[in-house]
């Protein structure tokens, strides 16, 4: 069953004001195209969950989409501070809920597994446990010792970017896997953006490479370059220059406004955004091919 539609349609159908959203991807495969489409469609009061809010949530918070963030590391990765989320939070204008990376990913894993909670060993660092009433304790019935537990996170919508998918949404992912699979299984709705739609025979030629089965996916959108300025392993490089320049832009609300006007509101979709980036950027982010050794599944 084909689930192919435009990203515009997918966001219009599956992202509602007030939703909890999980835009997946640890540094890799961050779904910027979907984030920008959500900004363009003017969604409000979202709870934005992500281990690392990264620039995507900085931009969505700047555009007024968010009521709350749930996170475990709030920085501009490899650069420094995540200025907008940070200042909104310091100013008391944005709610937040905080975990360690492991706590955050464990919440998602519990959600993906259909469990109410999952345990973690104690870390001795109890201040976060005191600050966040969602972090609790359970007694191990075998040793009598306590473990730390976090509740399942089941977002209303997960957005997951992948390298290639078939029209039903069966998706191949490689490179850094982050929490792509867990986010998809934990969420009530899944929007998949893919660098390329491929024939299902390509997917079926390597079923161990599939991370997400089509039947849990609601919408499949072919969106090349969807994760710029993040990257897609094998397709294009991370645009570190943009991560550095965001550090400048995000110092001034006016510059942020101008940037959003030009690069989000001012373009219709990701194709136009990518064209606008220009040949020099395309060239700078181009990647030399480096193929995996194939494996033999055998014809049985």
């Amino acid at each position, binding site marked *: *069953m084909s689930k192919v539609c435009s990203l515009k349609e997918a966001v219009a159908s599956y992202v509602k004001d007030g939703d909890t959203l999980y835009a997946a991807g640890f540094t890799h495969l961050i779904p910027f195209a979907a984030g920008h489409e959500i900004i363009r469609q003017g969604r409000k009061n979202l709870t934005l969950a992500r281990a690392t809010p990264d620039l995507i949530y900085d931009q969505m918070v700047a555009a007024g989409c968010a009521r709350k963030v749930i996170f475990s590391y709030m920085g501009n990765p490899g650069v420094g501070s995540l200025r907008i989320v940070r200042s909104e939070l310091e100013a008391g204008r944005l709610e937040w809920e905080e975990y360690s990376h492991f706590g955050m990913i464990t919440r998602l894993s519990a959600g*993906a*597994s*259909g*469990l109410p909670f999952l345990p973690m060993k104690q870390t001795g660092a109890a201040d976060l446990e005191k600050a966040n009433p969602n972090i609790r304790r359970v007694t191990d019935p075998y040793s009598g010792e306590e473990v730390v537990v976090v509740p399942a996170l089941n977002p209303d919508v997960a957005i997951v970017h992948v390298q290639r998918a078939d029209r*039903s949404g*069966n998706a191949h992912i490689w490179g850094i896997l982050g929490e792509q*699979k867990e986010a998809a*299984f934990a969420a009530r709705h899944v929007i998949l953006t893919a660098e390329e739609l491929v024939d*299902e025979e390509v*997917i*079926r030629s390597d*079923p*161990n490479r*599939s*991370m*997400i*089965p*089509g*039947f*849990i996916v609601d919408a499949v959108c072919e969106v090349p370059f969807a994760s710029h300025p993040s990257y897609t392993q094998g397709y294009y490089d991370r645009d570190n220059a943009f991560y550095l320049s965001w550090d400048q832009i995000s110092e001034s609300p006016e510059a942020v406004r101008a940037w959003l006007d030009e690069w989000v509101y001012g373009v219709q979709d990701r194709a136009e955004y990518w064209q606008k980036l220009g040949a020099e950027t395309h060239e700078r982010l181009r990647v030399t091919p480096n193929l995996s050794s194939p494996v033999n*599944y*055998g*014809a*049985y």
Partner: protein
Amino acid sequence: MEYNASELMIINAARLLRDGDVVFVGVGQPNLACNLARRTHAPNLLMIYEAGVIGARPARLPLSIGDPTLVSGASLVCSMYDVFTLYLQRGNVDVGFLGGAQIDRYGNINATVIGPYDHPKVRLPGSGGSQEIAAWANRCYIMTPHQKRRFPEKVDFVTSAGFLNGNGERQAAGLRGGGPQAVVTNLGILEPDDSGEMILTALHPGCTLEQAQENTGWPLKAASQLRLTEPPTTEELRILRDELDPDRIYLK
């Protein structure tokens, strides 16, 4: 057209599947029922195998739950832990097939022991995946020959839960799945009534209520409107015999 008891049960089980169902499949008769449904009224049936194979397209009849033909050409292969957590426990499975040595009045199944657990008279294989399938698949189906020893009033050991002691006990246990929705035998079909008791709701052509009652270990009730199943069609039998199990491995 002539047909045997296996064919009759498989065809009636296939008819219970709906197009688009996500089915947790075992090998043998359930596998045949699913493939028959997929080739007839349910082309969008999605088959998940306990071994971690999603969207299998077996090119030959799989002879074990982990047959390599299930993998080649499938949509996705994952670990066993993923299958039980992300798929089954998460509630992504519509239909499960179950089997066992005993099925009781309330649809509970025993696949563990005959006699006391610690000193079994007959040691059966055990749960495998069935404890969780019975709990968490939306609907469960059972195929079994209709024999008194297979249908005791109460199973010796509850390997997987049906409606427990009936009267809402399953719902009270908070299990997400709806429990056993049908037991397909060579005589007819049993379905749960409102209390969770398995009652006869359909008879196959040529079979009688008395036959079913004689071969059941509890006083078998019949539905007020007892259905008569359609006999297997020529097409169903052709697919089963010529395409799916030409060597008659599971159709004997």
